[in-house]
């Protein structure tokens, strides 16, 4: 058990060993993930949406290397970041799961991404279990959020009477409990409140089984054209999605004459994402592009790595300028084909 008043003391103790990262709101902006300074209180509720934590492992702009072009002394200096023990504090179940989906792309196959690996290597995850779902949340429809929480090192759940119950799942998690000596034994009521919250979290009114959706998503769906009609083609549903990680690589000169190659976030919704040098573009219109985003998440990624590409966080639903609801699309796709 951790008294809510002891939170800052515990965070200070943790900060001694880790770079503690939490979601903090600066002046009315949506809470974003950054290193916690003394006096910052991370968001530990589900009242508002928060920026996706992927920014900490896959920043929007990341230099890959710089190339010195002086004749005869051409050489490349890499910009792979140094590894640092990081503690992601207060990950909601959907965001905790998003790291597993990112790993499937960035750490698998013959090539592991060194930049992502360096930031992800020494990462400890502390989950915060939401007591209630917002209108756009559908984590329990695409998976089992309780399992996702158990995949973290530690979980914080509200235990009522101004305290949290803290449950460790790994050795690393146990060690975190000792930091700062702020923990007390868990009371009976606290465990009951935790179990109730966890059970409520897992409940879902509609359930989209990843493989069933993968089979149902089809090429000639009438729904693609219908969405494309109103979609504005902006990048919100991919930039603010915790598991969307396409990027672009560009070269540009830096002040001082060196050349920097950097990668920067990109989206399959933008019109020139697949446009080739000689002009051919396999996905010329919005219909193809909206179909690609949802097919990749709900069909191609499950077929490649066995896990759904969507963690049900609802950011794409909450933030879409034209209020396209991803759940309605899947329901329509399932209704048309699936059960």
């Amino acid at each position, binding site marked *: 058990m951790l008294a809510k008043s002891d939170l800052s003391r515990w965070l200070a103790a943790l900060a001694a060993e880790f770079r503690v990262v939490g979601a903090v709101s600066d002046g009315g902006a949506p809470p974003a993930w950054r290193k916690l300074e003394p006096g910052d209180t991370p968001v530990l509720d589900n009242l508002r949406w928060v920026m996706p934590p992927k920014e900490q492992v896959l920043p929007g702009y990341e230099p*890959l*290397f710089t*190339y010195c*072009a002086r004749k005869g002394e*051409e*050489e*490349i200096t*890499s910009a*792979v970041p140094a590894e640092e023990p990081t503690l992601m504090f207060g990950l909601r179940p959907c965001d905790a799961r998003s790291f597993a989906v990112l790993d499937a*792309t*960035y750490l698998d*196959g*013959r*090539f592991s*991404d*060194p*930049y992502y690996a360096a930031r992800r290597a020494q990462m400890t995850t502390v989950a915060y279990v939401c007591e209630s779902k917002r209108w756009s949340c559908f984590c329990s429809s695409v998976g089992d959020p309780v399992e996702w929480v158990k995949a973290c090192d530690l979980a914080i759940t509200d235990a009522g009477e101004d305290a949290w119950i803290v449950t460790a799942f790994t050795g690393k998690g146990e060690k975190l409990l000792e930091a700062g000596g702020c923990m007390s034994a868990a009371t009976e009521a606290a465990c009951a409140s935790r179990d109730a919250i966890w059970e409520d979290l897992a409940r879902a009114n509609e359930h989209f089984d990843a493989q069933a959706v993968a089979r149902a998503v089809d*090429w000639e769906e009438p729904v693609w054209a219908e969405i494309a009609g109103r979609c504005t083609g902006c990048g919100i549903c991919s930039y603010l999605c915790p598991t969307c*990680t*396409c*990027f*672009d*690589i*560009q*070269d*540009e*000169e830096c002040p001082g004459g060196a*050349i920097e*190659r950097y*990668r920067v976030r*990109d989206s*399959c919704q933008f019109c020139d*994402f*697949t*446009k*080739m*040098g*000689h002009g*051919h573009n*396999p*996905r010329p219109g919005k219909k*193809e592009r909206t179909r*690609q985003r949802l097919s*990749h998440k709900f*069909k*191609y*990624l499950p*077929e*490649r790595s066995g896990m759904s590409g969507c963690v049900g966080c609802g950011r794409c639903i909450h933030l879409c300028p034209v209020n396209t609801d991803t759940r309605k699309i899947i329901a329509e796709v399932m209704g048309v084909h699936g059960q």
Partner: protein
Amino acid sequence: MDSNPYQPHLATLEDVITETSDTKTFRAAFRDTDLRETFTYEPGQFQEVSVFGQGEATFCLTSTPTRKGYIEFSVKKVGQVTESLHGMSPGDVVGIRGPFGNWFPYSEWKGKKLLFIGGGIGMAPLRSLLNFCLDNRSDYGPVDIIYGARSPQDFCYENEFEAWGGAPDTRLHLTVDRGDDSWKGNVGFVPAYLNDLNPSPEGLIAITCGPPIMIKFVLQNLDKLGFAPEQVYSTLEMKMKCGIGKCGRCNIGDKFVCIDGPVFSYAQLKELPPEF
């Protein structure tokens, strides 16, 4: 695989051969001498060539791994990187990283007849496999090469036509879309010329690469000639940036062309959604 797959190795251009008005072939050798020996690749694989300050572009390795010490790639002038490449001369420095992607399954084709069907710059990936097979000539049966171009001045690798035509049991069939008075050979599109040659599919592997319009009709004609989809192979061209299956650009269906391709059999291409 080296530690950072995004970081290219520096290479110096040794030779720049002008093939046609808009295509040049570049021969490059790594600066790091022992890398020159250890750098191995298979016919059909591609590499990412960096023109620092302009960007990177994807080019298939057109040289054959059997001829060591250098690598070659052909570049058609279409965009920013290709244009700056065309402005380069021997001695300039480029970045090369790779090899990436899969390759032609030549080990399964031992003893089989081979039919190469190339169009324009599409001959580049086929040349790597063709020279590889000619260097191991005894492993393969009779070889036929159909190579088409828009006009007689648009042929690449003309200096190798001699070697190709003269190789044992190898026939080179050239055709142009529009002939001129100096042109003696066949005039007509590659798919039509394929029908005239009427190859029998028995024990034969067809490998084709060229502009999408040519591939579309070549595959149709091969169907009509009784070729099974498993007998026909092609390399797919898609926009690529990372080359290692991370940036999501070349994703079609559940495949990433840069790691599951670029070489696909016609059977595999049929399963992919029609989006390339």
